[in-house]
């Protein structure tokens, strides 16, 4: 028995080691759900990484793949209040201007947001003005699944009008993310954040689905244990 478990563990460890690059690449790819429907009426750049997302947004606007950009405001940080940094939305606006986007195409969304969930909630103000508007959301590749998860739970009836495109992040190579600290920081922490979102920001049907899945897994484990325990008892009884 022990030998069998040991061999199986060794085999699993060997397979995992041999295919770790493939598995880790798949783990990152799973986070990227980019599927842009272009052209769109509005471009929304999710705050969080002005150095990448905004420049990707510039390309979409410049190529005429979106008519307007709607910028999301964030509450001021301590550094902004002290004058050490500019507000994020102001930096976003300035980047668009400096990269040649006309002022008429730049608008701000109503309200402020601190999280991805709140960012996606603010999109409603676009549909309040223009119910048929289509939106392309730009964020980093690893962040698209969480953004889409938030969109599905907040605007389930608008999913035909919203699409996501992920842009590359700085500091690590997507196909070799595990070789860099930044990669670990981004990809591994994104999984934890996604888990948080799945627990706290889900719709009833999403929760039911996850609950059922969890129940199946627990039941499967419990039944396996029960079966093995009974078998062991039977074997012991037979032996004695």
């Amino acid at each position: 028995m022990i030998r069998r478990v040991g061999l199986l563990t060794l085999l699993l460890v060997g397979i995992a080691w041999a295919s770790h690059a493939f598995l880790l690449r798949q783990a990152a790819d799973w986070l990227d759900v980019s599927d842009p429907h272009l052209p769109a009426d509005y471009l929304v750049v999710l705050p969080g990484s002005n150095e990448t997302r905004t420049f990707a947004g510039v390309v979409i606007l410049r190529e005429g793949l979106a008519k307007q950009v709607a910028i999301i405001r964030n509450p001021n940080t301590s550094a902004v209040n002290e004058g050490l940094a500019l507000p994020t939305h102001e930096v976003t606006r300035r980047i668009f201007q400096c990269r040649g986007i006309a002022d008429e195409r730049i608008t701000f969304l109503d309200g402020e947001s601190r999280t991805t969930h709140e960012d996606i909630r603010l999109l409603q103000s676009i549909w309040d003005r223009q119910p048929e508007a289509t939106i392309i959301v730009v964020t980093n590749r690893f962040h698209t699944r969480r953004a889409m998860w938030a969109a599905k739970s907040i605007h389930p009836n608008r999913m035909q009008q919203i699409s996501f495109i992920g842009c590359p992040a700085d500091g690590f190579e997507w196909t070799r993310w595990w070789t860099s600290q930044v990669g670990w920081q981004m990809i591994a922490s994104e999984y934890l954040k996604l888990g948080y979102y799945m627990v706290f920001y889900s719709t009833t049907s999403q929760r039911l689905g996850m609950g059922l899945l969890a129940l199946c897994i627990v039941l499967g484990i419990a039944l396996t244990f029960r079966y093995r325990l009974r078998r062991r008892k039977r074997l012991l009884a037979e032996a004695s």
Partner: protein
Amino acid sequence: MLKRRKWTFLILAVLAFCLATHSLVLSWITRPFIHRVPLDTSRVTHLLMRDGDRLLETTLSELRPGRKLLLVRESPSRSEQCGAVPSEDQLLPELLSTRGVGPDQLEWLPGTLEDGESVLRPLEDWLNAHPNVVLCVFVEALGSGPLRRRIDRRYAVANARRVIIYPLEPEDYRSDRWWRSRSGCKDFFGQLVQVIVRWSDEESEIANPYPTPQAYEDAFKERLKSFDVSVKSESPTLEVSL
């Protein structure tokens, strides 16, 4: 029946125990993250601003005559390169001069930090070149413990002793009770991830070069093409605002 009741009681007892002791357990986990020792800043000759709430305010309150502010030059970000935001090299001295800090009170760390590079390496060289300075580093409270340990591990004892870590308490929560607020949880989680990912390597290496604004946009164009989005190949032109 009796067995089931026993299990229920056991689960309830475990839950009650967790509820009763969670504060104690989390405090114990938090302890290595916060560097809490009585601060003796009387010997300090230089101050280094890194991050944290009330950073400028605290630095200015500690910037007494005879002390200097050590500034770090970092390579320009993409938004700086395209002129969207002023570079920190300009912004900080200007801001400090409006708060009464003269240029004679500023000292620059030699060289320029590349993106993702830790300041610890050039700082060590600087400390070696200036054997009489005592440096005070301002850092957010939850990051103070890991920074202290990194310095102690990396620097020679004499150099490590000359670096004082000044933890800055967050404005919206108590760092030793971070679990009571959402931003506290977020900050602690961020620090935890950093500690975990640093276990293998002290310095953050640059995995790929940071492209310029134009190079980044060109790379993104290629990505758009991979989704069968047609993009123009000519160089960008400025739009004229009406």
